């Protein structure tokens, strides 16, 4: 019988971690700046022009959906969902092997 996947050395390398962080920063920083800037423009428009109010609908849709997922994100952090980022991929394959062996 082959060695269980979980018994092998961790697959996560320094290079992988670095790549993940760099890509996350490349995505997050410009987008947060862009969104923040446009949201500021929205507030200014809202204060100065009553007709601009109709733009609230898509913005509110977005903010409500994002708020829900931000809460989910915080809950996931508190639950330790991101404590061992690479373990779930190994567990998944182990479970699949177990189910197919039972077959």
């Amino acid at each position, binding site marked *: 019988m082959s060695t269980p996947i979980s018994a092998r050395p961790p697959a996560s390398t320094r290079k992988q971690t670095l790549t993940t962080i760099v890509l996350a920063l490349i995505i997050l920083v410009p*987008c947060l700046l*862009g*969104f923040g800037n*446009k949201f500021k423009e929205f507030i200014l428009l809202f204060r100065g022009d009553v007709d601009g109010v109709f733009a609230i609908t*898509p913005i509110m849709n977005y903010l409500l959906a*994002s708020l829900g997922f931000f809460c989910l994100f915080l809950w996931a952090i508190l639950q330790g969902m991101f404590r061992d*980022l690479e373990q779930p991929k190994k567990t*998944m394959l182990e479970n699949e092997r177990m189910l197919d062996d*039972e077959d």
Partner: protein
Amino acid sequence: MSADVERERPRHEDLVDERLVSWYFLAALGYMFISMLGGFLMGFQLIRHNPLRGIELLSPGRWRMIHTNAIAYGFLANAFLGALHWAVPRLALRPVLDRRLSYFIFGAWQVVVLSTAVGIMLGQAQGLEWGETPVWIDPLALAGLLLVAINFLAPIVRLRGPMYVTLWYFTAAFIWTFLTYAMGNFIPQYFVSGTSAGAVGGLFIHDLVGLFVTPLGWGLMYYFVPIMLKKPVWSHGLSLVGFWGLAFFYPLTGIHHFLYTPIPMFLQYGAVISTIAVEMVVTTVLINFFVTLRGATGALTNNLPIRWFYTGMVFYGLTCLQCAFQTTLTFQALIHFTDWVVGHAHMVMFGVFSMWLLGTMTYLFPRLLKTDWYSRTLCEWHYWLSALGIGLMSADLIVAGPFQGYFWASLLPWDVSVDFSIPFWAVRLVAGTMMFTGLLVFLTNLALTWAQARRAEEPAVLAAAA
């Protein structure tokens, strides 16, 4: 979770209702046949040979809506539900909430899809792209989506500890699909109008792709690809960047369909920026899958489902590249309303998600029927006709689009642009014929495989009876 596994030792047959998975797949293929037949007939109409001329119930305007709705809610939804009934219980190691509820949802969903088709043919379509479902069906459809979420979330929420990325995608999809459907079908109909309704409509159309089919599609890829390659995905951390990136950036992208409209420019620019953010997220996902393939590229030739999956990923990359062009204001001014967009939509719906689901079926049908495919050659024909067909159709329409845009910008009579487009539409018909033939080949192979499975079963049944 491992302690639970040791205690319970779940078995596949206790987790997965294979008969229901088969039913969903067969229903999906039935709707795909209807949708592609509609597209095939519409192809003749475009080259001025409408075979259904004079039949009001089957007029091109109605058939077009049936074509799009049958693919979105008939094929994609049924095929996804079938695949979910396989993947979710095996990932969560727990069955869905209630098998009777699963069968009820199956029946109810077919009623929703067929009622939509009948409603559209009778002229009751709602005035919203991909939300044409008649208003009296909307509450039923929404209730169905709620039941789907409850049925599948029940085993997922009982999990403890870090969750595999597929389940993150599925969890989000159940919530997003419900919210997106409610937003698109109820807010413009009952609560807002004018530009505001237009803005919500833009969010709905795009979110239906990005928050319904995209998370389910990528979730399935993160599940099936490692299983077939027999190696884990390269970086689970990077896959989570992809998921959370989609969660936070995608919902605002929809307004990029409404550039140059009265919607405030800061919202339009916001949509462009979030679209660029999604492009970056998509890049991380594609990098992850293609690095996972490293050392196993032979699977692209030997393993047919893997070939379907990675072809879909290539098309996904291409559609996102298109998006990057489409969201620039100058390019949008040229290609809006042209066949470029039609090519883009076909590449997304068939080239990506249908390819993934047909690959899933190619993998699962032999397991469901407990026999190999009747003919590997027919499977190959199905793949090549589909892949080359959608490649040709997309390329043809994407090339035609800018030409049409320049014709319109030159203020020549409309007819000139139509006459110019006829050869492109003839090529489109050839491509559609290839794809439709591919489906017919697949259905034939499936019928022969089913007959083969029945023949293999007979001696066992007779022996048991004796």
